[in-house]
């Protein structure tokens, strides 16, 4: 993944430039964390990199393909296939069971049949030691379990890139460590690129690379 000279401004209520000429390259299989004070633009950068925010200047490449200027439908497909998200809040669908929550992105992609997807979803749940909760409703889980489930959902389509906006922000030490180790393992064993925005210094220490931001600029990488 490569970002070239990304500028981003908010116009409401007055024009404020939040990102100034941000450029960096992340290689496949790297475990990268983005740190900085609040308001330095790191979340904004993440949403641009995630392809959800398209209102910026500059150029973004994912998997050696220029993403800037593509249609919204194309970007949706790309997110479905190549990017997995974990947010600070889990954003699970409470109407569905644990298993169904994981299945949704897979059913949308349609690469596998339903039976095969269910098998794969169970495999993902086993990684997180959650297989016995598969048939519960999503809102019957504890906070830590919900976050683990959200990560399992991000993994179902085997994305090449996993992004997180403070994925451990709401978790206690034990759960945070668990989540961290999972990310580490994904990067090392499955060569999935991981990009995490965080405040947690302990979390950052363990990553391969730290991108530090201040006032909309990358000051160290």
């Amino acid at each position, binding site marked *: 993944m490569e970002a070239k000279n990304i500028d981003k401004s908010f116009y*409401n209520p007055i024009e404020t430039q939040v990102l100034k000429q941000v450029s960096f390259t992340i290689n496949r299989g790297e475990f990268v964390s983005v740190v900085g004070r609040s308001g330095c633009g790191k979340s904004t950068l993440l949403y641009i990199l995630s392809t959800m*925010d398209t209102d910026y200047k500059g150029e973004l490449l994912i998997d050696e393909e220029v993403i800037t200027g593509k249609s919204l439908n194309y970007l949706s497909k*790309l997110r*479905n296939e190549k990017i997995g*998200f974990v*947010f600070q809040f889990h954003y699970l*669908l409470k109407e569905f069971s644990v298993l169904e929550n994981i299945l949704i992105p897979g059913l*949308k992609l349609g690469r596998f049949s339903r039976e095969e997807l269910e098998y794969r979803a169970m495999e993902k749940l086993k990684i997180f030691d959650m297989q016995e909760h598969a048939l519960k409703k999503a809102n019957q889980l504890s906070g830590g379990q919900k976050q683990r489930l959200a990560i399992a959902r991000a993994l179902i389509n085997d994305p090449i890139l996993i992004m997180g*906006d403070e994925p451990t922000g709401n978790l206690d030490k034990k759960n945070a460590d668990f989540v961290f180790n999972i990310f580490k393992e994904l990067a090392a064993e499955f060569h999935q690129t991981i990009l995490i925005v965080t405040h947690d210094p302990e979390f950052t220490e363990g990553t391969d690379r730290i991108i530090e931001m201040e006032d909309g600029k990358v000051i160290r990488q």
Partner: protein
Amino acid sequence: MSSKIASQVFYNVGSIDLSVVIDGIDPKRHTELFTFQDYVIVGNPADLLQTNSIILSKGDADRMLTAIGDVIQVTTAQQGNKAQLKVVGYYQSGLADFDNTNSFASINTVQKMMGEPSSYLTDIQVKLYDFNEAPAFASEYRDIFEIEADDIQTVNAQFETGSSIRALISRAVGITLLVVSGFGIYNILNMMIYEKLDTIAILKAIGFNSSDVKRIFITIALSIGLIGGAVGLFMGYLACLGIERMPFETEALPTVKTHPVDFKYYLIGGIFSLVTTYLAGFFPARKASSVDPVDIIRGKRQSNPYWKQKTSISLSTIP
């Protein structure tokens, strides 16, 4: 085609004369073409084949205190001929005025009574397979045979106007109900989208595009329409089953004994319920599809133009 003689006569009841019209008809043809037997409430149209028999209207029979088998005396208006006719039945058409001045006898009886030859006729009634063609036929016959020809629509113009206005009113009420319920569904879906903003945002984040989101909400709207429509039609059907059994006896419609129920309106109702809910679901669904996931996930709902349009509590409403 059925031929007819209309003759002006008087019934002689003691010292009183009642002025009426006796229609001379061919009972067999008249029954075949105009379901005459449905209007004959006592007796049988075929009884008219006996000479000098008459089917009286119920109203006249009551006024003259006659019973079946009685013989009444009539005088023709033009010739002053007197004749005795035997009452073989009563009929009731539903139009009280018509009933009070019309009775039926066979063509032969009327011809003899009037002293006319057997070639004498006054009216020819023509029944068409499609009565909508009547006006065209009437004007054609008027020109070809140089006669007076009236079509059924002209003769029954009053009745036609009445039923078209009734249909207009019932349709207007129906459309009003559908529009009101459509707004109800529209509001429900709008609130639902507000409640499900997080869900919409995450669906978009994991790769659903705008048209997928729109399709989800339109499917919800249509299932409300389908289930609501089915339940509504079923309840309506139950109500109709009850109404259908309810006695509805009126002198105006002698052949109808219970409330008439027409089941083709169920189909129309079903289709309309789906169309209404589709329209009511379309606009909220379009709003849902335009939700920006970044705004929701970052918790900056105010910056989404959609939510700016929402009514808010203003200072003036606080007591």
